């Protein structure tokens, strides 16, 4: 469609935009969604509390990399085209949460390398650990990770800080969102949330890797975690995260509030099942 204004002829390259503009309408709806289910067991085989399946809130506000759509897009679609000259190289310094290459030119535009994995091995002399980290932010020369992971651990256990001159490689895609977390904070979840306020870190309620399960050809996968209480807490919200360290956070694609928050005492178990549907 062509439009005429003040004798300047403009070409409308996107004639369908006016009818396709949508306003964000509160809670995001999407083809990828999850349901949370909470059960509390008290020593028997029948739960004493069962929330049933309840809908999640997806974090789809454009507030940085920590939203579900950004994470999903990069996890499913980002391939070798992301590569750049210093995606592989040797570090010039490392710490418990960072890797520096003073000669690098890491991309910083937009979300930079957030959510991607950097794998680090021994240096050219063969010295140093083999670990990986989830990049939470970066500058042109420094990658900040939430922690260094032991690649042989199924629980996301921390590994040894890599050698200061270790060889690294930044991988395409995103780290999976496989951690489940809880809080007693009762504030209603919002699509702008990027963290779980007052996330529980003690008494058996700390963030932990869930058991992943998927049946070939089915439209869902599940993440399941049984938390064992060693103290008392009321659980008001749960969330899924893409990193182990609650301080650094990581992507939080899904969160959900408990309509009837259960209170656990020492010895109780709380089962959190997140069913993610991909149609």
């Amino acid at each position, binding site marked *: 469609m062509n439009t005429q204004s003040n004798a300047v002829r403009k070409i409308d390259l996107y004639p369908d935009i006016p009818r396709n503009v949508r306003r964000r309408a509160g809670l995001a709806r999407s083809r990828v*969604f999850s349901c949370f289910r909470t059960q509390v067991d008290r020593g028997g085989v029948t739960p004493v509390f069962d929330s049933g399946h309840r*809908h999640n809130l997806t974090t789809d506000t454009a507030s940085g990399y920590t939203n579900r759509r950004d994470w999903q897009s990069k996890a499913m679609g980002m391939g070798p085209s992301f590569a750049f000259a210093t995606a592989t190289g040797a570090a010039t310094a490392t710490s418990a949460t960072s890797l520096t290459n003073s000669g690098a030119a890491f991309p910083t535009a937009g979300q930079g390398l957030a959510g991607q994995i950097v794998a680090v091995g021994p240096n050219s002399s063969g010295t140093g650990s083999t670990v990986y980290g989830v990049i939470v932010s970066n500058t042109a020369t420094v990658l900040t990770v939430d922690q260094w992971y032991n690649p042989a651990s199924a629980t996301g256990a921390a590994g040894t800080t890599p050698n200061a001159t270790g060889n690294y490689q930044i991988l395409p895609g995103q780290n999976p969102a496989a951690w489940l977390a809880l809080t007693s904070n009762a504030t209603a979840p919002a699509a702008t949330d990027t963290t779980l306020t007052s996330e529980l870190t003690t008494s058996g309620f700390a963030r932990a*890797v869930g058991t992943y399960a998927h049946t070939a050809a*089915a439209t869902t996968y599940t993440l*399941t975690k*049984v938390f064992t209480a060693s103290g008392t807490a009321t659980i008001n919200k749960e969330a899924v995260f893409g990193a182990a360290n609650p301080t650094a956070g990581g992507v939080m694609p899904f969160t959900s509030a408990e309509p009837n928050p259960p209170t656990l005492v020492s010895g109780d178990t709380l089962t959190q099942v997140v069913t993610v549907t991909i149609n």
Partner: protein
Amino acid sequence: MRICIHTSAYFDWEPIPEGESPEPGDVTKPDMNGDMLRRVLIELEGGETTYTDINVPEDQLTELTGNQITILGLRASMPRVEGVEPTDEQIALAWFLSQKVMPGHSPPSAWTLIEVDGNPDMQTFLNAYFI
């Protein structure tokens, strides 16, 4: 611990037809529009099977076996299998799989084979118990 459960049927979800309501016993969950989905069992034909891949972090089993309240309750209530004296870890995993993980995937009655990567004792126990 990597586990693969082969099954002749699996659960999936379908919309509840307009005008119908969930029946007692139906397992339901809301979809992205707030409409309800109903869990259905997809039975495979002609001897065909599918499988569920399961990755159980080690600390999940450590945590469960460390909770003697749970283990004692489960040991007392679990059906006995002749000739099988399960360990705490076997009890915990059988309960975790059948009661917490697999209700979202398939019923034990449809399972045809359970593989446990690198743990033949656990594999033997689970097959004796469920298959």
